[in-house]
């Protein structure tokens, strides 16, 4: 999915928290959004995911404005995902059920996903009994089960163990490579951005300060703010 952001702003309580004159994200991109707390990364992720409305400007998804049918192709995995009452299986099957996929096909697809995400052992476990890492894996599996065209991940691996991070990153890369899914990942973790993303955008005070290829942004940033942030010297 190609994304074109035009003159996008978001204003909260008379304060502009996001202002992006133009930003293009190509189909199949794996873009990282980095920046300090309160920079506007999550707000941008929510607007892109259709969870919040912009104050002005627009976003074109494959030349289309956001609509109910388009929302079926876009998904967001939150930092603290909400799992539905029921089992791991029920959670992952839910998006297919609401798309009226046949039960036999649901069983096959969910089992494949459970296997790939190393969740097979907890297939019938209740959602409320899961650890933080397992919750994140289930949320990612639930988002991927219906092959979205745009996947937005908001700090998907914050506070989880390295082995779980490894499985999740492997899956994110796989889905991007195999299905051509456009992926936008909000992260504080520069190493993770370096491992996953093709391009990285540095956001500061609601503006995209720099957007370039991973190596260039991390090793040779052009903007002094980006450089300071990467060095860990940027003050909010």
């Amino acid at each position, binding site marked *: 999915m190609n994304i074109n952001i035009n003159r996008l702003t978001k204003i909260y309580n008379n304060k502009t928290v996001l202002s992006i004159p133009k930003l293009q994200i190509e189909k199949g991109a794996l873009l990282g959004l980095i920046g300090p707390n309160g920079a506007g990364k999550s707000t941008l992720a929510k607007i892109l995911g259709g969870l919040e409305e912009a104050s002005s400007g627009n976003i074109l998804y494959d030349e289309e404005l956001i609509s109910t049918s388009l*929302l079926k192709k876009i*998904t967001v995995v939150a930092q603290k995902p*909400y799992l*539905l*009452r029921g089992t791991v299986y029920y959670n992952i099957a839910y998006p297919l059920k609401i798309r009226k996929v046949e039960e036999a096909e649901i069983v096959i697809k969910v089992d494949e996903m459970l296997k790939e995400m190393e969740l097979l052992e907890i297939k019938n476990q*209740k959602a409320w009994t899961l650890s933080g890492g397992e919750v994140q894996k289930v949320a990612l599996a639930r988002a991927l089960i219906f092959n979205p065209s745009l996947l937005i991940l908001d700090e998907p691996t914050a506070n989880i163990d390295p082995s779980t991070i490894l499985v999740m990153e492997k899956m994110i890369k796989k889905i991007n490579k195999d299905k051509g899914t456009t992926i936008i990942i909000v992260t504080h973790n520069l190493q993770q951005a370096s491992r996953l993303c093709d391009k990285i955008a540095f956001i500061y005070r609601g503006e995209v300060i720099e957007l370039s290829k991973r190596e260039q942004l991390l090793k040779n940033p052009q903007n002094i703010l980006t450089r300071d942030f990467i060095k860990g010297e940027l003050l909010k």
Partner: protein
Amino acid sequence: MDYIIEGFIEAFNLLISFDIELYRIIILSLVVSFTATIISTIIAVPIGILMGIKEFPLKRVAIRVIYTMMSLPPVIVGLLVFLFISRRGPLGILGIVYTPAAMIVAQTILITPIIIGLVYNATKEKGTDIQALGKTLGASKSQRLVLLVKELRMNIFTGIIAGYGRGISEVGAVMLVGGNIKGHTRVMTTTIAMLQSMGEYSIAIALGIVLLTISFILNSILYYYQQGDLSEY
């Protein structure tokens, strides 16, 4: 002490012998409160959910009004309903004063805010997350609403049980609008109040036992579903 023991013995005899008058009172109590709870549920659940997920002008005022109404004194409700439905009142033409219908109206007014308040609180707490999740997974508006009700079902059920408990245990409102007429509008609570003033304790104790049993059963059902819900979660 003897009169209490004798009262209990006689009460059990009345219950075991299926005393017609006693059971008529019990059945009317259950029917009035059950009907009022059903009507309240139909009104209150959608309102509670909408208040939890939608923003509208004067929402804060509306919430405060609902919270205040959750603790409405039953006699006040009884008095207001009576003034409206009495022969000289604006709704006197309905001719429902001193009928079970009037008692249902009064209990509905008492129960509805309780269910709205409890459903609103649950929706406010989890509704936004559930709605957002539904949206990100591609659920339509109606599917998101179904998802919300399914996720909040335990809270809704708790509200309904609390409302029923309030209805069946109140005395002031049904006394004022029903008149405690023998064989017509006499329910458990009004009978207990009347018999206590007359010094006749056996039926009063029998009805007290039934009221406590109903309360125990309702809470047991709630507990059972809460446990089931946890294991299902």
